[in-house]
């Protein structure tokens, strides 16, 4: 899955996902990617978030919506993602997934579980090339 957040020059936020789902899935199964609030969610007044990983598990927690909700409550994007990830891992200790979150000012962070680290890409006007950022899970 690719989850992408775009914030334009006016600070307007768009998020999106594209995925071919889980390998060897039961025919008919869709993952969290296309589900609003799960694969991705954005609120221009607050921020946005995208999720990737075990979609069957993550979608049960509306992981992207929940993360944006924590940002609405004043948490930093990294903290918001971490709280959501921890909520999921308490119920599903073996799950594997990650959330990338951003607030409306463009401050961003990520959290992950079920792997050693998670890398994500960032590009803004201060970098001529994409920056790869790694977070420890």
């Amino acid at each position: 899955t690719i989850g992408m957040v775009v914030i334009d020059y006016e600070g307007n936020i768009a998020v999106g996902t594209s995925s071919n789902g889980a390998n060897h899935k039961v025919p008919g199964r869709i993952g969290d990617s296309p589900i609003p609030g799960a694969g991705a969610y954005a609120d221009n007044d607050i921020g946005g978030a995208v999720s990737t990983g075990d979609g069957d598990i993550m979608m049960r927690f509306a992981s992207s919506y929940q993360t944006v909700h924590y940002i609405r409550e004043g948490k930093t994007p990294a903290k918001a993602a971490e709280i959501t990830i921890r909520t999921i891992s308490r119920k599903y200790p073996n799950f594997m997934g990650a959330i990338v979150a951003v607030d409306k000012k463009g401050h961003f962070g990520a959290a992950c579980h079920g792997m050693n680290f998670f890398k994500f890409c960032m590009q803004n006007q201060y970098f001529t090339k994409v920056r790869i950022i790694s977070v420890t899970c």
Partner: protein
Amino acid sequence: QSQVPLVLTTWGTDDFQAATTKAFLTLTKTYDRIESLLDGLTECEQLQCDGTVGFGGSPDETGETRLDALIYDGLNHEMGAVGSLPNVKNAARVAYAVMKYTKHSILVGDYAANFAVEMGFKRESLYTNSSYAAHQKWIKQNCQPNYRKNVLPDPNKFCGPYKPANDEDRFMFSHSQGSRRNHD
């Protein structure tokens, strides 16, 4: 310092970097966040990022690849999505077509493909030699891993077809640890 304009993308391998670059380039050229998002997601679909995006990846139990995509605009709270989309490669752009040309939020399955063709998208196979080979290999290893549980024959050992197991036969379903490549 203002942090915007900005593009963030899950995962960090080369293809995802290329998708990020593409999205940011479009954003600086067009100032259009949706066009930027679509170009970035489409880049990954065409590059088949990590085998978890786009055609020819993650075949289901029958060997078929189907696609999921979502476009969500935070300004107007508008969205479009497709689930289990067969035989159309540009899943992200079809999701955008759902947002642009319908009042719905998500279309799924074969009817989503019919909608896409009606909106001008090309119907084409999502099979590739590698998805076919991956599926054959999976069958040879007794269809492991799979997403079945509480069925007969034992899904931890055998391929289907399956039927519900009665209580005595129930097998503990161990949630298989999603590997990096066996996830959404």
